[in-house]
C-alpha cells in the first residue's frame, strides 16, 4: 500500500529530485554498507556526466577495495598493478593529451607501495587527476596497518595500536605532494555528510576542469571510513573519523591554482 503510493508519487517527473547517473551501471557494488567508496564513485560519475566527457575519459583502477571499480563505471578503464596507477595514467595521458585521465587509489596503494609513482607523476606535473581515498587501513586484505594509520590506532597488524617508535609515523602524503610545483590543485575532503558530499563534488568538478587547462596534477584526498576494518558500526565509524582522523588529516584546500 505504502509502496503503491510512493511509486505513484515518484513517477511524476516534477517529483524526481534525484536519479542515478548514467555513468554508473546497475551492477551491485561489493562495498560494505556505510563505506565511502560508493559515494565517491557516484560523485565522480555524476561530474563526468555533468561535464559531458564520457567519451573522453579513461580511468585507472588501483589494487585494493576499489580494484573492481571498473565493474560499476560506464567508461573505459584500466586496472593497474598495485601502486602503479599514476604511471599507467602517465602512459595514457602522454599519448592522449586531449583525454581526461584519472586514477582512483587507496592509501596503501598510493602512499605505501606506490609512493614513488605518486610523487614523480605529481612532480612531472602530469595533467591527470588523482583521487585518493584515505581510510587509514588496508581494507581489502582484512584491515592491516596502512601508511595513514593513526598513532595508537588498532589494526590487524597493530593489534595493540600503532606504536610510532616501532612502526613509524602516519604519512600526510597530500601535504607532501602539495609542495611539488607540478601539482596545481590539492585538497582534502570527505563524503560522510550531505554538506561534505556537496563540497567533494565541487572539488571533483574543479579538478577535472583544471585538467582540461593542462596546468598540472590535480589531487583530491577523500578521508573516509572503513567500518569493517575499524570494527565499528557505520555511524560510530563516522563519528570516530570526525574525532580522530579529521584533527590529523584536516579537511580543506591545501593548494589552489593562482588565478583562483
Amino acid at each position: 500500500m505504502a509502496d503503491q503510493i510512493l511509486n505513484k508519487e515518484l513517477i511524476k517527473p516534477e517529483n524526481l529530485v534525484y536519479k542515478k547517473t548514467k555513468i554508473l551501471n546497475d551492477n551491485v557494488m561489493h562495498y560494505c554498507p556505510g563505506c565511502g567508496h560508493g559515494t565517491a564513485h557516484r560523485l565522480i560519475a555524476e561530474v563526468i556526466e555533468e561535464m559531458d566527457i564520457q567519451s573522453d575519459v579513461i580511468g585507472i583502477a588501483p589494487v585494493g577495495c576499489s580494484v573492481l571499480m571498473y565493474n560499476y563505471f560506464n567508461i573505459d578503464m584500466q586496472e593497474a598493478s598495485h601502486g602503479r596507477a599514476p604511471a599507467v595514467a602517465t602512459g595514457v595521458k602522454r599519448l592522449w593529451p586531449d583525454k581526461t585521465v584519472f586514477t582512483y587509489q587507496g592509501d596503501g596503494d598510493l602512499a605505501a607501495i606506490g609512493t614513488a609513482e605518486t610523487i614523480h607523476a605529481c612532480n612531472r606535473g602530469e595533467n591527470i587527476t588523482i583521487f585518493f581515498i584515505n581510510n587509514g587501513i588496508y581494507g581489502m586484505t582484512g584491515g592491516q596497518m596502512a601508511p595513514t594509520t593513526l598513532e595508537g590506532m588498532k589494526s590487524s597488524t597493530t593489534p595493540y595500536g600503532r606504536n610510532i617508535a616501532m612502526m613509524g609515523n602516519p604519512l600526510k602524503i597530500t601535504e607532501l605532494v602539495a609542495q611539488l610545483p607540478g601539482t596545481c590543485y590539492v585538497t582534502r575532503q570527505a563524503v560522510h555528510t550531505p554538506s561534505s558530499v556537496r563540497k567533494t563534488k565541487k572539488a571533483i568538478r574543479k579538478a577535472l576542469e583544471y585538467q582540461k587547462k593542462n596546468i598540472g596534477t590535480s589531487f583530491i584526498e577523500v578521508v573516509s571510513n572503513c567500518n569493517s576494518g575499524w570494527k565499528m558500526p557505520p555511524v560510530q565509524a563516522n563519528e570516530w573519523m570526525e574525532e580522530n582522523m579529521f584533527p590529523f588529516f584536516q579537511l580543506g584546500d591545501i593548494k589552489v591554482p593562482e588565478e583562483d
Partner: protein
Amino acid sequence: MEEYKLMKGNEAIAEAAILAGTDGYFGYPITPQSEVMEYLTMEKPEERTGMVVLQAESEVASINMLYGAAGSGKKVMTSSSSPGISLMQEGISYLAGAELPCLIVNVARGGPGLGTIQPGQADYFQATKGGGHGDYHLIVLAPASVQEMADFVSMAYDLAFKYRNPVMILSDGAIGQMMEKVKFKKQQERMKTQPGWATVGKTPDREPNIITSLDLDPARHERFNIKLQKKYEKIQKEEVLFEEIACDDIDYAFVAYGTSARICQKSIELAREEGIKVGLFRPISLWPFPYKEVGKIADRLKGILSVELSAGQMVEDVRLAVNGKIKVEHYGRMGGMIPTPEEIVLALKKQIIGG
C-alpha cells in the same frame, strides 16, 4: 645505391623505433643500453613523427607507463638491461595477462644481482620461460647483428599486434655496443586508428573497454587461461624463426644465438680448416623455440654443442628438442667473459667429438 649507416646496436634499435612509427618510448637509464634513450632524445622524434619519449623514475614506472599506453592502443616500447628487466617482471606479467601488444628490449648483461655491465645471455630462462608470475609467454626474438637490431623492431610490433602479446627483443651488451653497417627501412606512418579493445574513451556505440588481468571467478579465469594457452600454441606453430649456417653435409652443429652465434661462425671456419664438419643452427625466435627443427637436424648429426654466455640455459631446450638421440653439451662463459672462437672449437673437440 643503398644507403648504409655505421651505428651501435642500441642506436640502430632507437632509429628503427622512430622509423617503425612507434608512438611512445618509456625508459630508465641502465648500462649497457642507455644509448637507446640518449639517441631518441637527441633525435627529437616528437618533431620527426610525433613520437613521445619519457624518462621514467624507475623501470617499475616505465613498464607501467607502457601498460597504460599499450592499453590505450598505441604502439609503444621500453628498453632496459638485465637488472632493470628483473624489476619489470611484475609489469610484464600484467601486460601478458591483459594481452597488451608492446615491445620490450633487453640488452642483457651478466648476472646474477648487479652482476656486471659486460654482455651476458643468462636471462634466457627469464625471457623464455615466464620471468614473472603465472602461465604466460613472451614472443622472444634474438638479434645477432646491428642490422637485426633494426629489422626486428617492426617485426616485433607486427607480432605483438597480431597476437595481442608483449614481444621481447633479447639482445646483449656486445650487440648493443658494437658498431656495424646498417640499412634502414623507410619511415612508416604512425597508426591512425586504434584496435577495438583499446581504452580511448567510451563512445555510445559500444560497451566500456576494460584493460585488466583480474578475474575472481575461477571457472571463467580458467577459461581465459585456456584461451591464452591456445594463443601460445598457435604462435609455436606459426612463428618459429631460425637460421642454418653451413649446415649442409655436417657431422656436428653449434646451437647459439646473439653474440654467441657470431663467435660460432668464426669457430666453424677454424674447425673446417681442421677437417671438422660443423655448422651453426641459430634460433632467432627463442620463444617459440625451434624444437622441431633442432630435432630434425639432430637426425643427421653426431653431436651438438650449445654455446651461450651463461652456465647453460638454452641447452635445456636443445636437449628437449634432441630428445636423447645424440649427444648435446653446453659450453659457455659467464660474468661478462666472452669465449674466443678457438676455445669453442676446443670445447667441441673435447666435449662432443672426443667425449
